[in-house]
């Protein structure tokens, strides 16, 4: 063996050893697997927000594993139930990081709960990619470790709705009904920017999410004689307001935010088809749930979970939301190279920009941008047919450090 060959052999051996040593220093990584922690509401009243979203993420990781994994490593996942509750979510995160020694985290469907984990994740420098939580409180101001809003940021929800009302209906006076909670505050702040740019006057009415009688707030917004009503609420107040509008003979457009219903069929049953004559709903995916553009995702679900797919109302509406965060995690690991470290993955995430093929907008991060998606489509729904309208509507709001 020549001296050159010996030197090359030694160099290769040293590189391998350094590589193995570097990998060994990182928790959750072996030469065969990368361990990630998934969490979401798998039980309780908010289960519909996360159960099938977790399933979607899992099936995507299984697909990647079948295709050979990432640089030869398989993704190994551990799943925890966070019950959409702050204490439980923090317990789940701590268990995954300190007991399961995961490399990175992928979870959370409820915004208030995920914010509770922010300090812990940042202190421990764990890469954390949210599932479908908008999680604005954890994304702004930006940190080096938390990435999210793969479905959409709440700051972007209201803004995109105002944009739609202005462009589609030429609305200049818009009634805006939001919640008096974190969601409501965030989306209203985002809306103001688009209202200003489009010369739209917002008549805002903030209601409690638990409201039972919406007569008073509805009469107040109707008194402003709006060109359209934007409902940026959860399902129950939305249904009450749509029903009330029909009872009061309001026939101008009603536009419902993506948070307003998990099932349009259920909404139609609750309010009656007559209430949906001039009704539009926001959707953050490229197509209506179950639509042709999303067929590959639904087919993947049927193959992965045949028993669940056979049940009525499955997959749940939010199921595809689990795909983009899983894609983002896989892409960041691929971009981090064959010897990934948490810092390399975080660096890859900060410049990530890709089309998920699932959401209306691109998944884009940047130096001050930790919320991936800001775009939506709108669907006309008459109680029977969902007809996506042409065009993608994007919020103009961007984070400004205070």
């Amino acid at each position, binding site marked *: 063996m020549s001296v050159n060959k010996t030197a090359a052999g030694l160099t290769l051996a040293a590189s391998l050893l350094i590589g193995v040593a570097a990998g060994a220093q990182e928790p959750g990584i072996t030469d065969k697997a990368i361990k990630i922690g998934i969490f979401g509401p798998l039980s309780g009243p908010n289960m519909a927000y996360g159960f099938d979203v977790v399933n979607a993420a899992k099936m995507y990781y299984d697909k990647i594993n079948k295709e050979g994994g990432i640089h030869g490593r398989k993704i190994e996942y551990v799943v925890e139930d966070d019950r959409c509750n*702050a204490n439980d979510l923090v*317990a789940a995160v701590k268990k995954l990081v300190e*007991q399961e020694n995961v490399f990175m985290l992928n979870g959370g469907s409820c915004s208030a*709960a995920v914010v509770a984990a922010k300090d812990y994740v940042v202190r421990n420098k764990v890469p954390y990619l949210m599932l479908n939580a908008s999680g604005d409180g954890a994304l702004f101001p930006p940190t080096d470790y938390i990435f999210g809003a793969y479905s959409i940021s709440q700051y972007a929800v209201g803004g995109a709705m105002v944009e739609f009302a202005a462009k589609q209906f030429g609305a200049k006076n818009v009634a805006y009904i939001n919640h008096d909670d974190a969601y409501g505050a965030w989306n209203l702040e985002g809306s103001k920017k688009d209202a200003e740019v489009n010369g739209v006057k917002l008549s805002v009415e903030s209601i409690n999410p638990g409201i039972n009688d919406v007569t008073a707030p509805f009469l107040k917004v109707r008194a402003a004689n709006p060109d359209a009503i934007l409902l940026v609420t959860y399902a129950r107040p939305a249904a009450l307001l749509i029903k009330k509008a029909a009872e009061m003979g309001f026939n101008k457009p009603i536009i419902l935010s993506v948070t307003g219903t998990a099932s349009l069929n259920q909404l139609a049953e609750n309010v009656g088809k007559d209430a949906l004559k001039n009704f539009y709903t926001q959707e953050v995916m490229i197509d209506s749930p179950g639509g042709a553009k999303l067929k590959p995702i639904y087919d993947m679900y049927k193959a992965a979970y045949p028993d669940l797919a056979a049940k009525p109302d499955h997959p749940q509406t939010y199921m595809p939301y689990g795909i983009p965060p899983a894609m983002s995690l896989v892409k960041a690991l691929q971009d981090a190279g064959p010897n990934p470290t948490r810092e390399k993955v975080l660096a890859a995430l900060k410049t990530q920009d890709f089309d998920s093929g699932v959401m209306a907008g691109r998944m884009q991060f940047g130096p001050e941008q930790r919320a991936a998606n800001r775009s939506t489509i709108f669907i006309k729904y008459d109680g029977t047919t969902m007809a996506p309208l042409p065009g993608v509507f994007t919020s103009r709001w961007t984070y400004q450090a205070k």
Partner: protein
Amino acid sequence: MSSPPVASSAPTRRALSGPALIGLVAAVIVAVALPVFTSGYVVYIANLLLVFVVLCLGLHIVIGETGQFSMAHAAFYGIGIYASALANRAVDLPYPVAMLFGAIVAGAVGLFIGVLALRMRDIYLALATFAFGEAMQWVFANWDSVTNGPNGLRISPARFGPIEILSDKQAYPFVLFFCLVIIGLTVAISRSRLGRSFRAVRESEVAAMAMGIDVRRARIVSFGLSAAIAGFAGGMFGLFQTFIHPDSLGFQTTILVLTMVVVGGLGSIAGAIGGAIVFGLISEVLRQAPQYQEIIYGAILILFMMYAPRGLFAFIGDRIREARHGR
């Protein structure tokens, strides 16, 4: 509605039996050594359980000792969390002082509620305190300039002199210490003249008055003490948790603590402590069975109500006594 059933009408003053003493010593050793041989996650759960123990002891004073219904415990707990966190952040009060401040603010509000509650009892008192709890949650969620409203409030890391608490393991000795202090305080109250007056009110307000006990004072003080202890639990929460959201301070938390106290054994300090630990642990363990956890939790509650209506510890005590007497 009559006063709630209690495990015993008077606190026991007997010395601990041999096995009980060994068990207690073992529990203390395990509690002290916990951070050495477990992960931060286990220590986080231990911290949370110790906070629940203090919360349950607070509720024990008003319900278990004095026989007054209160459904406002989550509100007092929340007042303690917000007051201590804000005092620490706004005027940079040393954290132990901030914790005391939280307890005092919660206690003062509790005294006020106690005064208002004087003319009410049973279901009316339960409804009034429930309404207060709901109102306080609304205040937490809407008083933006103070509580940061629906965005939730970030709690600054607690500092004890040069030590800044940045992990559950660092917080644990302090949380354990404060929990033991509150246990000691509750035992002292229970054995004091004040504790006896509480129990006299619980058994019969008319008889208590006939004995010369100031029922009005006992009820007010009971509410105040209970609220102050709940507020102190809030301060303890801020030792290891860095964020609070109004959603965590609703009726569900009150019901959870009430369940712990009732199932542990109403009227018993050991019951309140045991209920908090056992049900806190059950809740955490059941997260591993998400599909069935609510069914299992419900089944456990029903079984307790059917077979151990006086609480877990009274049930265990009865079984031990039966075994000793060969029955």
